[in-house]
């Protein structure tokens, strides 16, 4: 079933309407701050657990498997290319409104990493799982996930 905007009111049921007057301020934290600062410099930073020979992207302060702490010396720049592992085309926004221009979200295995990276797939006419993709940068970089516009099929 497609998501629909909530607009139908049933007269037989009484409702109390409300919203939660809150918002959230998330610190990027230790590892994601390093990652964001890297993006600002047009670098994609991962980090590697030497024991498990496993590279995380985005980086983490710990290896989720052996639970070793991944310190400053574990970070490294990874290539700006990767493989398209999966994608989906988005037709509706969060509110259930149909988008004028659908867009692609993708899972990308960035080269020399062992995790999936989640971002937009852009400027790609005929996406195919297994195709090579390359990072496209935003000219106005502020240290956020939007410093990358997305990945483009090569």
């Amino acid at each position: 079933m497609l998501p629909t905007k909530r607009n139908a009111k049933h007269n037989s049921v009484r409702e109390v309407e409300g919203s939660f007057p809150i918002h959230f301020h998330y610190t990027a934290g230790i590892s994601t701050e390093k990652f964001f600062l890297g993006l600002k410099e047009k670098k994609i930073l991962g980090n590697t657990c030497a024991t498990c020979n496993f590279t995380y992207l985005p980086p983490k302060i710990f290896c989720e498997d052996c639970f070793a702490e991944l310190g400053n010396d574990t970070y490294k720049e990874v290539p700006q290319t990767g493989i398209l592992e999966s994608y989906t085309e988005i037709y509706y926004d969060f509110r259930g409104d149909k988008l004028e221009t659908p867009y692609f979200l993708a899972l990308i295995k960035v080269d020399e990493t062992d995790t999936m990276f989640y971002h937009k797939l852009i400027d790609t006419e005929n996406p195919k799982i297994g195709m090579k993709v390359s990072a496209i940068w935003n000219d106005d970089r502020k240290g956020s996930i939007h410093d990358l516009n997305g990945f483009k099929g090569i």
Partner: protein
Amino acid sequence: MELRGTKLSNDEFLNKVLSVTYYPELDYAWATGVAITKFLNGLKEGVIYGTKCNECSRVVCPPRMFCEECHTPMNEYVELPQTGIINTFSLAYIRTDATRRDKAEIPAVIDIDGTTISPSGFLHLINEDTPHDKVKVNAKVKAVWKSPEERKGDITDIKYFDIMED
């Protein structure tokens, strides 16, 4: 033991370290359900309803659809008096959003007359113009209503409770 954690000032937290701010766009419409719909519709008519349990004979307020003790249906609605006693109260200078007010509002648990357990009633407000030395635990109070035109089936259809003079 060397304990870890990086303390931030409010300025560092909001403006210096990298962060993401998110405003959730969520609205809710809570169905008021069987018993509270009856209660709210009653308020619109200027009536305070409770319910009676046919199993344990308790009369309670606010009304519920089931008795939480017997776990049996509770469907006998009882019109209760519009009076009660202050079970407990506070002189509150802090609003919902943690901002302060100069004049206290007076939230109280009102133990409604005609119920058979104590306390049994609901959270409401005592008239905030009442001199504070008159507001006491166990003081008798009565409901003061909005006009019938203003009432919409909400807890605020009762404007507040007034202390009854002896």
